[in-house]
């Protein structure tokens, strides 16, 4: 069922115009019809009285002398009027004196004259009119008229009306289809522009300005908004790039002094470590662990800011091969942890193969790292959802508190104290960066039976 609100504006305008036309036409037709019926009845009554008067006047003498034949002859003059069902003349005592029966319909005269005047019944009109001679009433004439003519007229009128309405609607449809265009076209153009902007996220698009009316104002405002958004997006992109550049350069250049500190601390330990007392050894360990951790963090920050630095490739990627490469890179960790890895065949995706391998590698590495007491078991599966592929990496590890969800993907975010699990807290941030650069989404859910499932979406590669 199509709702009126869902109709395109062109159709709605046409519909409104046609509905208005129809209502106006119908009201006009109904009024005309009522007028027509009233007028017809009035003239019918007038005619019937004219005939009654005519016959009454001519039959004065015959009625006074009781000449029935003469009256019948006079009544026969009504033959000319097809609608007359019949007529009856009553004498002064109110007894039927003479009858005329028309050809068309059954004549059902009343046995006694009724009050003068006319009355309508369903079948017809009945007129009673006095016959007088020298101001003395000598009888009554009754004429019964069939209303078939009127009904016929009403039918004809209805037929013509329907034809008029149909022709008008057709004409209205054709005209409104053409005439509503100046109103609907700018709105449709505006809607098209808005849709394109939303779909492609291309803020360089502008809606065509047509006219200076309210829609023109709306179009101008829309375009102005796009100009603002475009400028903001460009600014945001520039500032993001600057920030990324800063992070990259900072990380890159910080490596050097940290390397100096780490290396010389190590060297110092070798040369003079034997002279340290217990406390100095401890202090020294703190310093060198700190330097080492700083080095690791800087290196992983550099890795993070390097994602997509050499451009993002967008080509079909054999996801199964990518999983294979990621597991190959991790084979030592898999072996060491005694993990089992189950793989289901995955649909091909579009993206940067190196980044996708790294994404999978980070997730599997986390699954191995955050293990429970049981040997780790990792399951990699995927399914098609719309035009996307949703890939799930499930583990039986220690699980994640849902409350930690929001900070989980942040840079340098660790949920455990230093030393409890190795790592710098950059793996999931990298995953998020990779997935988002691919226009996808990454999230996690608790695994049924313990552990965590990490899920992400990538675009599905078209079939070759």
């Amino acid at each position: 069922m199509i709702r009126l609100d869902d109709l395109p504006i062109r159709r709605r305008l046409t519909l409104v115009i046609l509905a208005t036309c129809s209502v106006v036409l119908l009201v006009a037709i109904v009024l005309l019809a009522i007028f027509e019926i009233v007028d017809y009845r009035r003239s019918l009554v007038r005619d019937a009285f004219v005939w009654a008067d005519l016959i009454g006047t001519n039959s004065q003498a015959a009625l006074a002398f009781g000449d029935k034949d003469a009256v019948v002859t006079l009544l026969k003059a009504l033959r000319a009027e097809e609608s007359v069902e019949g007529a009856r003349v009553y004498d002064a005592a109110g007894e039927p004196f003479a009858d005329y029966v028309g050809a068309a319909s059954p004549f059902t005269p009343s046995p006694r004259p009724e009050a003068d005047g006319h009355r309508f019944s369903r079948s017809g009109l009945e007129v009673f009119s006095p016959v007088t001679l020298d101001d003395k009433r000598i009888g009554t004439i009754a004429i019964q008229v069939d209303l078939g003519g009127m009904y016929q007229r009403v039918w004809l009128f209805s037929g013509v009306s329907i034809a008029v309405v149909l022709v008008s609607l057709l004409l209205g449809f054709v005209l409104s289809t053409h005439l509503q265009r100046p109103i609907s076209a700018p709105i449709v153009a505006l809607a098209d522009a808005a849709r394109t902007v939303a779909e492609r996220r291309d803020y360089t698009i502008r809606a065509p300005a047509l006219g200076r009316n309210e829609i023109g104002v709306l179009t101008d405002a829309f375009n102005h908004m796009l100009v603002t958004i475009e400028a903001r997006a460009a600014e945001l992109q520039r500032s993001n790039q600057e920030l990324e550049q800063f992070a990259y350069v900072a990380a890159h250049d910080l490596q050097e002094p940290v390397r100096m500190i780490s290396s010389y601390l190590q060297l110092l330990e070798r040369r003079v470590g034997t002279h340290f007392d217990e406390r100095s050894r401890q202090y020294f360990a703190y310093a060198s662990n700190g330097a080492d951790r700083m080095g690791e963090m800087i290196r992983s920050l550099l890795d993070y800011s390097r994602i997509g630095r050499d451009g993002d490739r967008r080509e079909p990627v054999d996801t199964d091969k990518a999983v294979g490469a990621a597991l190959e890179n991790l084979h030592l960790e898999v072996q060491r942890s005694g993990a089992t890895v189950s793989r289901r065949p995955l649909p091909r995706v579009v993206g940067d193969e190196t980044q996708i391998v790294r994404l999978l590698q980070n997730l599997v590495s986390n699954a191995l790292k955050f293990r429970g007491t049981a040997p780790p078991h990792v399951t990699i599966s995927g399914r098609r959802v719309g035009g996307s592929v949703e890939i799930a990496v499930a583990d039986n590890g220690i699980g994640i508190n849902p409350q930690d969800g929001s900070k989980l993907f942040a840079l340098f975010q660790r949920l455990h104290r230093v030393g409890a699990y190795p790592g710098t807290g950059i793996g999931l941030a990298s995953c998020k960066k990779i997935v988002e650069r691919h226009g996808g989404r990454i999230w996690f859910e608790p695994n049924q039976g313990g552990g965590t499932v990490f899920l992400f979406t990538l675009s599905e590669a078209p079939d070759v």
Partner: protein
Amino acid sequence: MSDRPLVLIVDDNPGDVDLISLALEDTAIPLEVVCAYDGKEAVRVLEAMSPVDRRRCRLVLLDLNMPRMSGRDFLAWLRQQAAFKHLPVIILTSSTLPAEKAECLALGANDYWFKEPKYDLLQRQVVGVRRYLVA
């Protein structure tokens, strides 16, 4: 004097020069270290070498980012000298740009090493000079 092979270390950071020298010393490979603190000085050191020393000189460990004359420029200069055209050069740098590595190898560097972040790793790394020192 001695006939031990000469290794020329070119690096603007004295800390690095010391570190690399120490690491080479710790490998116990018989060699002698000569230092220069930028490309210009390295050119001068090479040009001032006696013919005997030139024959002993077997390897250059070259940093890239240096003031006055960069490692890249020094390498380009070196490959144009008849006497040093075939002198092995190992780039030892903290730059990890893949483009830089490709450029240096194209300029005639024999290897490209990323400076290891800790001393023990560096020590293991510099053992790799051995194969360049055999005459």
